[in-house]
C-alpha cells in the first residue's frame, strides 16, 4: 500500500515534469478551446448547440485522449524500451501495482483536464450545466477513460521501439484532431475523411459525450451503432491485452 502511494506520487511528479506530455495534454487542448471560442463563439453546432455546449465536452474528450495515449500508452513503451521496466521487474514488486498506479495517475490527470476545461468554460464562456448533467457526464467520462485505457494498452502492446511509438502517437493525434469533430466539422469535409471519422472511435465517443453533457442522449440507430462499435473495440482490446500478458 505504501508502495502504491509512493509509486503514484512519483508517477504524477514525472508527468508534470515532462514538457512533452504537458504540451499535448494541458496546454494545447485548453488553448485551442479558448482560441476557437474567440473565433467561432457565436455560431451554433450540431443542430442548435452553442459553442460551449458543443466544444466543452469535446475538449474534455481531447484531453482524455491525449493523456491516455501519450502519458499512459506511449509512456509504457518508453519505459519498456529503455529497460526501466526490466530494472523494476528484478525488484520485489508486483508489476500489477505499477500498472495500477499508472491507471490511477491517468484517471487523476484526465479528471483534472475535465475540471480545467469546465472551469475555463464557466469563467470565459459563461458555461451552464445542471448538477445532474454534470454528475452523469462525470460518470460517463470515467467509463470513457476506462475504455480508452484498455484500447491504448492493446495498441501500444505492439510497440517495442520508442521512436516508432512516438511517430505513431503524433500521427494518430493529428488524425484524431481532424476526424473527431474537434476542429472543422467532419460533415463539411471530403467523403474519405468522413469514412475515417466513422472508423475513429474518438469520433463516436465525442458525440456520445456531447449528448450526455447536454442531457440529450437517447438510444437511436446512430448511438446504438456507436455503442456497439466501441464495445467491440474494447472487447478485442481486452483479448489482445490478456493474450499478450500470457506470452
Amino acid at each position, binding site marked *: 500500500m505504501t*508502495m502504491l502511494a509512493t509509486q503514484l506520487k512519483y508517477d504524477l511528479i514525472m508527468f508534470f515534469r515532462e514538457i512533452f506530455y504537458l504540451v499535448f495534454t494541458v496546454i494545447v487542448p485548453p488553448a485551442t478551446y479558448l482560441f476557437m471560442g474567440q473565433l467561432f463563439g457565436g455560431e451554433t453546432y450540431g443542430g442548435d448547440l452553442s459553442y460551449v455546449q458543443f466544444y466543452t465536452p469535446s475538449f474534455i474528450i481531447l484531453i482524455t485522449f491525449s493523456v491516455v495515449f501519450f502519458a499512459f500508452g506511449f509512456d509504457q513503451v518508453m519505459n519498456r524500451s529503455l529497460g526501466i521496466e526490466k530494472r523494476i521487474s528484478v525488484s520485489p514488486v508486483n508489476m500489477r501495482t505499477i500498472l495500477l498506479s499508472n491507471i490511477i495517475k491517468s484517471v487523476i490527470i484526465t479528471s483534472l483536464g475535465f475540471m480545467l476545461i469546465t472551469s475555463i468554460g464557466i469563467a470565459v464562456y459563461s458555461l451552464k450545466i445542471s448538477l445532474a448533467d454534470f454528475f452523469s457526464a462525470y460518470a460517463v467520462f470515467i467509463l470513457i477513460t476506462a475504455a480508452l485505457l484498455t484500447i491504448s494498452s492493446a495498441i501500444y502492446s505492439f510497440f517495442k521501439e520508442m521512436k516508432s511509438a512516438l511517430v505513431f502517437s503524433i500521427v494518430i493525434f493529428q488524425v484524431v484532431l481532424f476526424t473527431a469533430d474537434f476542429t472543422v466539422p467532419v460533415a463539411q469535409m471530403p467523403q474519405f475523411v468522413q469514412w475515417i471519422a466513422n472508423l475513429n472511435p474518438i469520433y463516436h465517443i465525442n458525440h456520445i459525450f456531447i449528448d450526455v453533457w447536454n442531457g440529450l442522449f437517447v438510444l437511436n440507430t446512430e448511438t446504438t451503432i456507436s455503442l456497439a462499435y466501441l464495445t467491440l473495440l474494447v472487447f478485442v482490446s481486452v483479448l489482445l491485452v490478456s493474450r499478450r500478458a500470457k506470452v
Partner: protein
Amino acid sequence: MPNIIVKGLKKAYGNKQVLKGLDFTAEQGEVIAVIGKNGAGKSTFLETLMMIRDFDEGTVNLFGKDVGSLGAKGVRELKKDLSIVLQPTNFYKNLRVKELLELFRSYYGKSADVKATIRDFELQEHLKTPFDKLSGGWKQRVALAIAFMSSPKLVILDEPTTGLDPYMRDVLWKNIIRHNKEHNGTILLSTHYMDEVERYCDKVMLIHEGQSNVFDTPANLLAKTGHTSINDFYLDRIGEKEAVR
C-alpha cells in the same frame, strides 16, 4: 549450503544455442567474476539468475529454492534477497537521485536505508540532479547504490564498471568490496577488465562455447596454466579455440 547452484543450464534463442549445459556454484560471501567474449552468454546467464529470463533445460537453485518450481509470489520473495545492476542500466529519467532512492526503498520495504546509502556511496553532491542529467559514471554509481541499499544476500552486476574512468572504477570497487565485507554478501559480476578479476575477485568463471570453461581462483588458474596475468590466459584460451575451429 551454497547460495547458488546451477546444473546443466541450457538456453537457446531460436536455433542459436547460447548456453549448452553450464554448471556453477557460489558460496556465501564470495566475489565471483564471469568473463567471456562479447556474445558468449554472460548477460544471458546473469539474467537467468535474476529470474527475468526463461531457460530451456537444467536447474537453477537460489538460497536452497528451485527457481523453476516457484510461483510468482515465491519469485518476489526471493527477489528481496537479490539486487542487480543491469547492462545497460536505466531509471526513470526525470526523477532526481534522492527520489529514485525513495522509490526503490518503497519496493524493498523498511529494510532499505536511504541515509546510509547516501553516505556510503557519497551521493550528496547530486541528490537533486535528475537521473538523465548525470554523467555515465554517476549513473552507474547510483545504480550500484540502489542495488546495495537493501543489503541483499546476493548482488548480480552485469558489467558494472564498463565505460568508467580508472578513478571511478576504483570508487565503485571499494564500495563493492566494503559491502561484501560488511554483509558477507555474495557478489557475482561480469567484466571485460581482467585486472579487476586479479585484484578483487575470489573466483573467476570463463564462459566459452556455452559452457563453464574454467572456474577457479585467479591464483590457482595462473599457477596451473603458467600465465603471468589473467589477460594472457584469456587471450590464450579464447584465441586457441578460435584457431582450432
